[in-house]
């Protein structure tokens, strides 16, 4: 029982790490550029597809993801230059329409190139086993790799946001956008960098899950909405908030699905508990979001106080 709990907690953390990788860029895009970007999840999907394609081409998952990373970076920057750059000073509604259109385009393009059927990416040989953590608790090596890579990225981001000039501009941009541009900072370039970086992080997340999940055209949509939940809980524009919220959401979702029915069994008869658990578990993260919103409408780590 304890082992199961630890195992599921690790799964939750691993899921949370992935959510964080996608949410980190998106929360900056919302916070710094005040842009609602629905197409961010698509970059996660593209990362997965490119990793699958390059891994098949080179015969190595590592090469696959190493080529996919700069490719998603390039796609992110291209999208910024072609589309998003023209949306910054538009209404939220225009942003919604254009990025919604972008999702349709990219989802269909992926379907045309790779078909609608899910692709699978073989697990890299070196990480296919599992590691003994404590006692008889074993955990798949690849999932540990995901957690480690995600934590390393989070640390890198933390360092970047708090100890570099770029990070300082980002923090300032999230709270006082006008002031940053008044300082003569090249806002356009800053935005392009944030966008490319965000795209690469999302693509990285997509590439990393390719071996453990099926790669299919709808995968970007489902992660996008959970990413929104993460951003709302964490507070728009806050990378730290995104990290805390992502882990929280990952844990709540994973533990809720596995232990929800078990807990309900104490209250209801087994059949009803199983049914109710299955129904309630997917809603838990949304209920969590509603609770946070009720108590703190601007999220756990709100940026840019004052005006709101």
């Amino acid at each position, binding site marked *: 029982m304890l082992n199961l709990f630890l195992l599921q907690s690790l799964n939750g953390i691993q899921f949370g790490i992935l959510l964080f990788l996608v949410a980190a860029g998106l929360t900056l895009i*919302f916070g710094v550029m*005040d842009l*609602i970007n*629905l197409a961010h999840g698509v970059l996660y999907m593209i990362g997965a597809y490119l990793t699958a394609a390059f891994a098949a081409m080179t015969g190595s998952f590592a090469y696959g993801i190493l080529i996919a990373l700069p490719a998603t970076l390039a796609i992110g920057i291209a999208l910024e230059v072609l*589309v998003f750059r*023209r*949306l910054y000073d*538009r*209404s*939220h*509604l*225009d942003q*919604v*329409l*254009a990025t*919604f*259109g*972008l*999702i*349709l*385009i*990219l*989802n*269909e*393009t992926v*379907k*045309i190139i790779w078909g609608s059927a899910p692709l699978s990416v073989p697990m890299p040989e070196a990480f296919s086993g599992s590691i003994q953590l404590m006692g008889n608790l074993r955990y798949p090596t690849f999932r540990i790799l995901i957690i480690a890579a995600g934590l390393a990225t989070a640390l890198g981001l933390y360092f970047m946001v708090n100890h570099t000039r770029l990070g300082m501009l980002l923090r300032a941009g999230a709270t006082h956008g006008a002031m940053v541009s008044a300082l003569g900072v090249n806002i356009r370039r800053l935005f392009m960098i944030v966008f490319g970086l965000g795209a690469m992080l999302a693509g990285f997340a997509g590439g990393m899950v390719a071996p453990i999940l099926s790669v299919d055209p709808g995968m970007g*949509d489902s992660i996008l*909405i959970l990413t*929104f*939940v993460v*951003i*709302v809980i964490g507070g*728009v524009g806050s990378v730290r908030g995104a990290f805390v919220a992502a882990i929280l959401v990952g844990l709540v979702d994973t533990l809720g699905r596995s232990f929800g029915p078990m807990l309900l069994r104490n209250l209801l008869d087994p059949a009803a508990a199983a*049914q109710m658990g*299955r*129904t309630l*578990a*997917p*809603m838990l993260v*949304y*209920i969590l*979001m*509603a609770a946070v*919103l*009720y108590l703190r*409408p*601007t999220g756990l780590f709100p940026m840019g106080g004052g005006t709101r």
Partner: protein
Amino acid sequence: MSEAATPSLGPVSSSVIDAPHVRPPLLAQSAPWLIFGLFAAVPLLALATGDSFILVVATRMLIFALAALSLNLIMGYGALVSFGHAAYIGIGAYAVGILSSYGINDLLLQIAAALAASGLFALVTGYLSLRTSGVYFIMITLAFGQMAFFFMVSLSAFGGDDGISLSGRSTLFGADLLRSNLVLFYGVLGVLAAAFLLMRMLVASRFGRVLRGTRDNPTRMRAIGFSPFSFQLTAYVIAGMIAALAGVLLANQVQFVSPAYMTWARSGELIVMVVLGGMGTLLGPIIGATVFILLEDVLAHFSEHWKLGLGLILVLVVLGSRDGMSGLARRLRGGSDV
């Protein structure tokens, strides 16, 4: 694509904004008659061509026009971009599906259940969403819409992912009136006309005036003593309930209910319909939904990847016109400023 948004139809809701004694142009006055008249004549077209599918498509247009009309109340008159509106269509459809699986087929009971459930859902989620604004509001409505979607997907007692097939259409006082596609069509047309008239009254009423004022300048409205929140929440609930009514009708038309009605993509399409026809105008959503369903039909015949075309159109239109899609729709309608 928007040539189909018939520039000749003219601004409609300007009659609401203008001073009472200024009569709106004749064209604007006659536009509703024209549109509803054209729809009323569709069965004749179906009869003349012998293509009964026309009636099915036209019914679908009317149903989505009703849903778009409801979204327009909050989006067009309240500036609240809700990305979870399809959830209400789903709630309405499931009210039919779930009740009929218990043998309750009476349309009025199903409608009552749909209105109650959607009203409650809108009240709770609206209360939470409206405490925020802008980007937050869009994300949160999307998330709540998705929550409703997952709830239905995991509700395996009622088909889960696969949905519920209905054994037949709803009955009215025990009579199986709606079995005929023709009766259903005129029934839906009647509901849409009633909703249109209701919307026209709402928008011009004290309530609607506060809603429109808040859309344009919330600070000004607070400075004269209004608290926008309760007005916005009321509009949100009304919009949700009308969309649920559209869901009841949709379930009846296709005799099938599934979570696919409430995907976030469907919510996005509803937004596109409203903007396409003209946000904040009374007839706009009806025209937008008609054009959208027509387009969906035409493009889908042309290629299974028709959504690629839709996406391209959306991106190009938004990027191509300085004031976005609503500006383009406005210019096509003849430059009205409503």
